[in-house]
């Protein structure tokens, strides 16, 4: 039986195991070294691998992410930590115009073994500038892969797969997941990084979610039992590419679809999910797919208001019920 560890520990273990065997891997970011990482993900690695392989950087997101691009072009496997996704706005040229495009523009002559990890999402009253969600922006960039692990096991698997990939991979970690616990079994063979996971089987309704919302959707599903609704819950695990097959197969069975995301609803990730699954499952759908997303407003600092801007378990329950009216 595998032990229960924190999400951050699963990420830490993945990095440690890989760095021990592959010298091409190095970590860089603000306070990843001596300090051990804002969310402890790189704890202990500086002492073990030294400052060149665990590099504390100045506050220069655009350039240290670009540094990762350069190093990846020559065959290294840089793991860039952008302290939070909010600062990734400063690194989007490096991610979108460089990492995602340079190998293509060279006609396919260079690898891009770059991994960019970013904690994000609405945490606890960090206010509008520190509550970004960026999945929609990154999804629209061909050439990037995006994983959104929701459990320690997935964090362990997907980070390992990301680091070993020759494609640029963005790992979106939710700030409120770092101190969630779960089993991590290193001996199990991992599923493909983009494979969606059915977290709960059900007959009446498909709820698709990812990252922190996957757990909330599961809780909502348990509550829905009392209302006589048996919901299937799918955790996407990957936002680019998306495992459409698993999703469509579920919708074809349940005939109802609820999509839950924390991102602002307007032009959020859910829009793509709803649009594609409508195309694929139109005739099987009883009602229009429903998107439950964040409100289209910057995140207020006030805690009660903050909570009202993103889906809560009760909101998911209510939305699910709406699909049966």
């Amino acid at each position, binding site marked *: 039986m595998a032990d229960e560890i924190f999400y951050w520990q699963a990420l830490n273990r993945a990095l440690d195991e890989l760095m021990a065997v592959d010298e091409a891997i190095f970590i860089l970011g603000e*306070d990843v070294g001596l300090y051990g990482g804002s969310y402890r993900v790189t704890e202990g690695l500086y002492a073990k691998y030294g400052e060149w392989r665990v590099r504390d950087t*100045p*506050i220069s997101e655009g350039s240290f992410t670009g540094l990762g691009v350069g190093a990846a072009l020559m065959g290294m496997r840089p793991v860039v930590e952008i302290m939070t996704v909010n600062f990734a706005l400063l690194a989007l040229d490096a991610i979108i115009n460089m990492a995602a495009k340079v190998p293509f523009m060279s006609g396919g002559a260079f690898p891009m073994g770059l991994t960019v990890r970013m904690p994000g999402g609405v945490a606890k009253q960090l206010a509008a500038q520190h509550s970004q969600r960026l999945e929609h922006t990154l999804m629209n960039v061909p050439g990037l892969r995006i994983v959104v692990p929701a459990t320690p096991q997935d964090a362990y698997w997907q980070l390992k797969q990301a680091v070993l990939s020759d494609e640029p991979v963005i790992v979106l970690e939710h700030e409120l997941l770092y101190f969630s616990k779960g089993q991590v079994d290193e001996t199990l063979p991992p599923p493909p990084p983009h494979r969606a996971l059915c977290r709960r089987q059900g007959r009446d309704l498909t709820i698709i979610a990812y990252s922190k919302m996957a757990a909330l959707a599961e809780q909502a599903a348990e509550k829905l039992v009392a209302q006589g609704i048996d919901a299937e819950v799918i955790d996407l695990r990957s936002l680019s590419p998306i495992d459409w097959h698993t999703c469509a197969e579920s919708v074809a069975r349940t005939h109802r679809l609820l999509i839950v995301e924390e991102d602002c609803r307007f032009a959020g990730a859910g829009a793509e999910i709803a649009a594609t699954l409508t195309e694929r499952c139109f005739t099987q759908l009883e009602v229009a797919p429903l998107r439950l997303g964040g409100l289209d407003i910057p995140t207020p600092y006030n805690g009660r208001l903050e909570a009202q801007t993103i889906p809560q378990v009760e909101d998911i329950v209510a939305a699910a019920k709406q699909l049966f009216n």
Partner: protein
Amino acid sequence: MDRDQALAFLHDMTLARAFEERAAQEYMQGNIAGFLHLYPGEEAVAVGVLHACEASDYIVTTYREHVHALVRGVPAEEVMAELFGKSHGCSRGMGGSMHLFDAERRFMGGYAIVGETYPVAVGIGYGIVLKDLPEAVICFFGDGAVNQGTFHESLNMAALWKLPVLFVCENNQYQIGTEIHRHSAVPEVYKRASAYRIPAERVDGMDVLKVYEATQHALQQIRAGTGPQLIECVTYRFRGHSMADPGSYRPPVEVKAFQQVDPVEMALRELSLAYPSPEQIATAGPDCLLRLREYCLDQGHLHEESIKDLEQKVQAEVEAAVQFALECPEPTMDDAWDALLCNRNGEVLT
């Protein structure tokens, strides 16, 4: 520095210290959440700089800005209420600790993304020139912020167009856990200004008078139309980076050494008209400032009583601020939508 001014400085610094320590307590109580970046140790910078400004000048600052707001005149009640996320907070509960604003006092905000203060300040400076006014902009930033690209881009533009901006580096020598020698190839921040031909000076940021004088001088130059200036204030924060940071990356001796040059203590010393001699300072030993304070008191330039009075007054101010914040109503979602849509000026989309 005359006695009145010294007392004003001392008041603001004492209030600053008390306010921040109380904020820390309220954070532990759960009345304040989010990231809370406190200022103890650095008070001489905000107080020295802002006392040298005019009411018509604009202030642009970072997430570590409670004290800047207080010194600028934003009532302690409104600052505390904002930390509590309440509707009479200076940002109506929408911004919180890192985003204090006060339009009336030209307090143009706390910015939480490191490096944002530069272009905002430069933009205001540009507007001032376009309007041909004798105003200036004060732009605060940390030592870690110096490595952000906007520093370079903005200082170049400010210099190129001779904009009335005073750049003030609060060099507390740390970017969270990364000491300045590990983040900057040239750790003397003021030297970087030469790449833009901006006059720059390094001052002891633990000495409120020096900060005040340097600011006065720089603002004179700026108002004479010679373009931007930069002041680097070397200072230290006594606490961790934020309430989430134990600060264990700093050697205890380092923290202690700087606590011994505590600017609040130094301001007290300034009140003494008879300065201690260098010998006296040299022989004062590790608790030199405490001893100096006693020495000043002995000289009769400042009475135990007046210090106690001041401390009580300040405590009452802080207490009142907390009471106000506690009693203040929470904002509603309607308030939030209003904050977002008020610039739509009533336009209704149909």
